[in-house]
């Protein structure tokens, strides 16, 4: 973690109330167990932290593998935050909510909590 993190967290914290729409893209491998888990986890997190201001695009690479090229996807499932920028990737089934929130800059790390 860097020392800039508390500032970013506070800024996103403000945005979470009224901020812009989040564009999220979830790359999956068909109906694979981790893919299904990722979709469920993402829906839950978005409902909780971005209610009303998010869009999720599901891209099934098992059907269109060539679509992996755009975001340089290596493993599935992988979540990509397209907006707000900059682009961020979270690899895995999103079962660790805390790591997802940190990855999406939705939550400041533990240090940010202690130093508001």
């Amino acid at each position: 973690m860097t020392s800039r993190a508390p500032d970013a967290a506070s800024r996103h914290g403000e945005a979470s109330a009224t901020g812009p729409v989040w564009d999220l893209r979830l790359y999956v491998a068909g109906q694979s167990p981790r893919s299904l888990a990722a979709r469920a986890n993402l829906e839950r997190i978005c409902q909780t932290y971005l209610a009303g201001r998010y869009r999720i695009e599901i891209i099934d690479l098992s059907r269109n593998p060539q679509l992996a090229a755009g975001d340089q996807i290596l493993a599935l499932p992988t979540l990509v935050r397209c907006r707000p920028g900059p682009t961020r990737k979270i690899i895995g089934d999103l079962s660790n909510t805390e790591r997802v929130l940190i990855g999406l800059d939705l939550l400041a790390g533990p240090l940010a909590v202690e130093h508001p």
Partner: protein
Amino acid sequence: VTRRPDEARADDVRALHAAPDEARQTLAAILNGEVDAVVVSGATGTRVFALEALESLGQRIDELARINEDLVNSRAAVLNMMEDAVEAGAALRRANEELRRYLDLVEVIVVAVNADGAIQIVNRKGCEVLGYREDELLGKDWFALCVPPRLADERRAFFRAMIAGPPEKHAYVEYPLLTRSGAERTIAWRSVPLVDEGGRVVGILRSGEDITDRRELEEQFRQAQKMEAIGRLAGGVAHDFNNVLTAILGYCDLLKDDLRGNRPALEDVNEIRTAGERAARLTQQLLAFSRKQMVIPQVLDLNTVLQSTEKMLSRLIGEDVRLTIAPAPRLGRVKVDPGLVEQILLNLAVNARDAMPAGGELTISTSNAALDAAFTKRHVGSVAGDYAALTVRDTGVGMSPDVLPHIFEPFFTTKGQGKGTGLGLSTVYGIVKQSQGYITVESAPGAGTTFTIYLPRVGGRKTAPVSRPAAPTTLTGRETILVVEDEPFVGAIIQKVLAPRGYRLLQARSAVEALAIEAAHDGPIDLLISDVVMSDVSGPDLASRISALRPGIEVLFISGFIDHAAVDLEALSRGGAFLQKPFTAETLAAKVRQRLDARGSKPAHQSSGEPPNP
């Protein structure tokens, strides 16, 4: 929304920082099981692999790796085994080569033939004796190639019996091999049946020793022994014969004196005498063969004898035969009776002439020769050393191998009835043996004959020619003579010859009797006539005993043959005190007078203390 260029650059830098993080995260997610598929981009495009499948693929890969490992291991094992096998093979080959080397080292022929008689193995010695290379022999029929045709059927039958019969160990047989050149070698064979696991005879292994040379030596040895035996027999016969002939010739001489004026009777006696003389010559030759001839060896140069005989030889061989004499320079001297060398030359020349009825060439040459161990090994009876060689070579009809072993036997002749005595070559043989020499003969039908005579070289100067005492003018005398002769009719003829010429004779039949007569006789004894060989004491022994009792007594030995071991012939002959049987009445009378006259001219030591005879 447009971004300022510096913002875009900042994004790029972030992305650059993000890449290693992303790789780390991807790896962590895979390890945590949070992803279950991967995207793989390659030349053929991008594909998605489910990790589950990948996992099992991984397992299979592991499995394959294990299998592979096993394979690698087992391959190594196989390689090891192969290496071992190769090494074992090499060791086996080495052992085989070693065995083969041994097989080729032995001086014994080793041949293995299969049940059909085809050659399976033949060693170096076998190839050497047969004169073929190994590859020319392998697989060939033994009996067709290596056995003389006249024996092939018999040997093959024997072989088949051996193959068919119960395995019998070590059959020994001698039979000749036919070599590539067509020559035959006598081989002593031992055969062992080769038996397979089922006990069947599948071939024969033979070892053979080349005994040709040994057989030849044995044959030579037998030959030498035979000649020795014949010689002894001939010598014995000649000895007795000489006594008889002495009587015949002596009585003829006496009769001739009695028959003076009776012409027809005188002619008859002359016929008897001529026949007796012929018989005497034959006896002489027999004695020569049996090496009992009286000889007076001299140190001489063979070339001198050869040159002095040349004229006689060329007369002898006739006009159709060309004679070439090739004397070697610096020829070593030999010690031999020159008369015997002449006899050798004459006999060999006559033989050569008879072998060349249509003419040809006779070459007589001399040379220095050294007989070495290699020569003596091959020639029974020869002694190593330095020799002067006399070679007589003709271009005549030659002799066949079955005649050669007999040519030196007395009375063996290939000439027609009445043409030869069969004593010519046996005389030569006897002379050579008597002179400690050696004779070889090489001959083949149509290829002429070569005799080579080796006489031992001696040091020293040439012997001065023996000066013969002048023949006495008178053959009568009044002296007393003691005659010792165990053959009564020889004693009688001496009596008949000498008594009428005025001598007084005392007769003894043995040495013992002679000593008794000497002791009993009061008057002088001027001459002792004694046989050389007697049953009790030898003539020379008796002579020395009587000489001791009566110093100055003269001695005349008479003998038909001489045992060279017992008599110093040379010493005796130097004094001329020797008369060979058979002798004529006149020779005896002359010899007696000569001895008695010599007494007076001799230095004092021989007759010291003895009053000079009137």
